[in-house]
């Protein structure tokens, strides 16, 4: 009970739990926003109905194919291996051949099953609990516990039970919450009592049971599997007695397991490793709903059964090791291997430090933020998330887009009448001719002079001509606009629209990708620099620093320089990634064309080319990011560490985040001046300039205020604790 109280009634756990809950709900809503529209739900239900109609045939087909598995081997008349596999598969599917399928209203439920983030978040929470189990940082505490009568084996047993209990609790809570959220978003309640095979998502689940039971089974299975994953970490921690090394080993192990899972095929001789994998423990829905067999050492193996057997064995081994280590309580410092690893790591670290000493002060500051304050973790998270949010799949694949690209590349550039003479006018004439011809066909059909097939051919032809005509009309509209604006060139708008205007990767997305990128960048700044001033406070170094000649204004400016360097680097990354993704999605043309050529920009006040505009945009974004950094910095000076990080996150990122749900609070968001383009679209160039100027002024004031705070003559704020 005390252990439970220690974990649950702890500020860090409480905040983490709260954040996990919030994040789960928000991300679920965002991730599925295209799935809970009425049309999407209708499509889902239609597809499910179609699936249910042909389900019996599907199962019978599998059984028939399985039963017919036979072949000639060199030594035997039949291929016993294939036969055995066929027999097993047939037997399994036989169990579900007779299930009655009914309507499920399960679009939301399937989204809940597919939602992976919740598993990751629960795992993170449980990793935190395991870390709290290891009292190695306070060795004396560990020794005190070990000398109590219940401080060894019994404590380990209690902690294993507690881990299981918390895992189940978290799963039940978060999945119930998700289920409720899905009911609200999808406006339908799933039918829990119908057979789970009624959902096409579970068509290969070979156990006859209801949706409700499958849901409970999944929650329990997922909870227990996560306990096993964190017990692996716990075991490594116990064996290493070193948090950082254990974390590195565990991360390496998970990475290897993931690579094994992704790279090995089902027919690979070591496919056993693919289907009995740590990564699969996180993605347990895949394990549950899929029926798989593979061969290992000439034996047919059912993936689920083998997984269950190995899971029990590994679970027992883990418990055994933890109990044994808990009972003996030996510190790993006695181990030669561990001491050697520590020595090697220390010498690598010393070498890095030696190199750092040769560089100017700003590198020391970066070293502090990145290495000692673990800023590299935020950096890694930033890189992973930034890459993850990019979508490089082609924008559209219809033929007309290719045709449009070809026309723009042929006639693009400064306007000339050639496009009318060579393309628009002939196309229009052709269209008029085709319309007349089609009318004739219709008339002849009505007179029953031609049959239905001939009419269908004519309709097809007319459809194609109509599509071409629509394209001609849209290009004509564009050309007429270009004709009116003498500065503008005729260029393909699509790519530029995606990069700079309201269309995101997919039509109707708005600035979604840009907003997500900007929010991530600002969140990165909030957390990356959260410890920059707090570290001095915590380590009580501020008294020494401030007593040195350059420890005030000079040091402050060096730290501000860090913000600037980071702002520049982030803008470069942002711009380069955007261009790279754009190149994959839709090509950009005519970089040197005047900005007026992009017709979605209204009232461009000065004449400049697109490439100059791109450079200017990057410069202004850097300045905006820097100005926002100054404001963040000032807050971090007042409230350092994670508290400051979260506070700045709430102040600067959350309003933008909320506005993504069509709640109009983006006026409160300082992410807008960082993105700049949404501002230009909303208020035009002139007002955007004013807003940016005011924003930079606020940034400058924040810089000055921060400087006064740190370098001022005599301070109460920076006194030691």
């Amino acid at each position: 009970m005390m252990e439970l109280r220690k974990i649950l009634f702890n500020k860090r756990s409480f905040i983490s739990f709260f954040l996990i809950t919030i994040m789960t709900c928000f991300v679920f809503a965002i991730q599925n926003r295209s799935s809970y529209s009425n049309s999407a739900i209708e499509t889902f239900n239609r597809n499910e109905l179609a699936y249910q109609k042909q389900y019996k045939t599907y199962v019978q087909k599998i059984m028939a194919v399985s039963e017919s598995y036979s072949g000639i081997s060199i030594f035997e008349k039949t291929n016993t291996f294939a036969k055995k596999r066929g027999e097993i598969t047939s037997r399994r599917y036989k169990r579900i051949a007779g299930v009655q399928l009914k309507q499920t209203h399960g679009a939301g439920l399937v989204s809940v099953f597919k939602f992976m983030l919740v598993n990751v978040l629960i795992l993170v929470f449980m990793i935190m609990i395991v870390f709290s189990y290891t009292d190695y940082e306070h060795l004396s505490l560990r020794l005190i516990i070990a000398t109590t009568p219940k401080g060894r084996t019994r404590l380990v047993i209690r902690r294993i039970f507690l881990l299981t209990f918390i895992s189940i609790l978290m799963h039940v809570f978060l999945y119930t919450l998700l289920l409720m959220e899905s009911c609200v978003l999808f406006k339908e309640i799933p039918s829990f009592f119908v057979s789970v095979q009624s959902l096409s998502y579970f068509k290969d689940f070979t156990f006859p049971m209801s949706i409700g039971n499958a849901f409970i089974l999944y929650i329990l299975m997922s909870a227990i599997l996560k306990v096993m994953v964190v017990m692996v970490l716990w075991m490594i921690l116990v064996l290493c007695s070193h948090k950082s090394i254990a974390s590195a080993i565990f991360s390496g192990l998970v990475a290897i397991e993931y690579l094994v899972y992704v790279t090995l095929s089902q027919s690979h001789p070591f496919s056993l490793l693919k289907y009995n994998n740590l990564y699969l423990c996180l993605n347990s829905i895949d394990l549950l709903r899929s029926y798989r067999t593979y061969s290992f050492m000439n034996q047919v193996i059912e993936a689920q059964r083998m997984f269950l057997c190995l899971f029990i064995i590994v679970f027992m081994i883990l418990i055994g090791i933890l109990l044994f280590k808990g009972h003996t309580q030996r510190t790993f410092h006695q181990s030669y291997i561990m001491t050697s690893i520590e020595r090697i790591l220390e010498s690598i670290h010393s070498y890095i430090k030696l190199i750092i000493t040769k560089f100017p002060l700003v590198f020391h500051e970066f070293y502090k933020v990145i290495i000692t304050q673990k800023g590299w973790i935020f950096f890694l998270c930033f890189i992973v998330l930034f890459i993850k949010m990019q979508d490089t799949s082609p924008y559209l694949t219809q033929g007309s887009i290719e045709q449009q690209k070809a026309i723009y590349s042929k006639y693009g550039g400064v306007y000339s009448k050639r496009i009318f003479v060579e393309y628009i006018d002939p196309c229009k004439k052709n269209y008029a001719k085709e319309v007349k011809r089609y009318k004739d066909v219709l008339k002849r059909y009505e007179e029953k002079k031609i049959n239905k097939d001939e009419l269908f051919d004519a309709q097809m032809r007319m459809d194609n001509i109509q599509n071409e005509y629509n394209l001609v009309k849209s290009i004509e509209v564009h050309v007429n606009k270009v004709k009116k604006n003498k500065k503008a060139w005729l260029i393909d708008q699509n790519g530029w629209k995606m990069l700079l205007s309201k269309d995101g990767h997919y039509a109707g997305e708005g600035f979604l990708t840009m907003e997500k990128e900007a929010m991530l960048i600002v969140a990165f700044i909030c957390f990356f620099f959260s410890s920059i001033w707090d570290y001095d406070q915590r380590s009580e170094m501020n008294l020494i620093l401030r007593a040195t000649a350059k420890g005030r204004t000079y040091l402050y400016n060096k730290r501000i320089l860090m913000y600037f360097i980071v702002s520049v680097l982030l803008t470069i990354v942002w711009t380069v990634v955007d261009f790279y993704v754009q190149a994959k999605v839709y090509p950009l043309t005519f970089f040197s064309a005047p900005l007026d050529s992009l017709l979605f920009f209204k009232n461009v006040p000065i004449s400049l080319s697109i490439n100059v505009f791109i450079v200017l945009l990057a410069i202004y974004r850097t300045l905006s990011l820097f100005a926002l950094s100054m404001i963040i910095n000032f807050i971090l000076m007042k409230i350092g560490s994670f508290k400051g990080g979260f506070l700045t996150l709430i102040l600067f990122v959350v309003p933008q985040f909320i506005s993504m749900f069509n709640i109009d609070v983006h006026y409160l968001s300082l992410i807008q001046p960082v993105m700049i383009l949404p501002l230009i679209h909303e208020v035009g160039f002139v007002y955007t300039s004013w807003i940016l100027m005011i924003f930079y002024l606020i940034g400058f004031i924040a810089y000055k205020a921060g400087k006064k705070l740190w370098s001022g003559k005599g301070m109460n704020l920076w006194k030691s604790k």
Partner: protein
Amino acid sequence: MEWEGDEFMEIKIEDLTKVYGSHVALNHVSLTLNEGIYGILGENGAGKSTLLNLLTDNLKRSSGSILLDGKDILKMGKDYRKMIGYMPQQQGFYEDFSALQFLLYIGELKGISRKQCNKQALKLLKMVNLYDVRHHSIRSYSGGMRQRILLAQALLGNPDIIILDEPSVGLDPRERTHMRNIISHLGREKIVLISTHIVSDVESIASDILLMKKGKIIKNDTPTSLIHSIKGYVKEIPIDDLYYKKIKNHYKDGVFMQRSGGLQYRIVTDDKMDSQFTLDEEHINLEDVYLYYVQ
């Protein structure tokens, strides 16, 4: 600001006051400091650290002034801080830094050239016996080693004013002696301020002693004069003497001392007593002075 070696330095503290809410930490202190080693003695909360923090401009004064050779140190700013070396009471560090890295970092903030800083840092590390572990993380250092690296950073750049706040905390007797020797070798051409509540730290090396109590300097003199000032007040009474049984409840702050003639009870008091118990001036030490004035 470069200081000419043949000129005298003078720090003049005038009517310096620091108030925290209703608590007066430093109460109208006036003082003049010239070259020499000053030991600031006082019990916890007497205002020693407050005085030093005001001298390093880490704390905002409530009133009064601190002048270095007639110029206010707040106005001098960077030029003043170039001249000071400060060792705080807290053992604050960037734990992941190595000793050498830490000294080079502080050296850069002190405005010492890289080459010069490297040379000085290595010399100081040798002086404080940390040269062999200069590449190890400070995290792995013991309390004594941390104190020594703190002293080394204070001495980096050869400052003219050295301010040491409780320098011997956490040191074993051997390390304490070593540190005392280092401080005494700093020379008499610098202003060295050592704040401590351990009298033996400054007894042999300080040229002047400042006794502080409740935010005020109650006594400021040379150790000899201070000892002379309590002549006849220090008494040692054998514990088997009847007189001891009579006074033991009255003088509870006395200390037991082992002497060749047996266990003695040592008290500092200006109460009139039998002269046979009174010690000569040569047997009086600064601890007696401290007990007399401070307690």
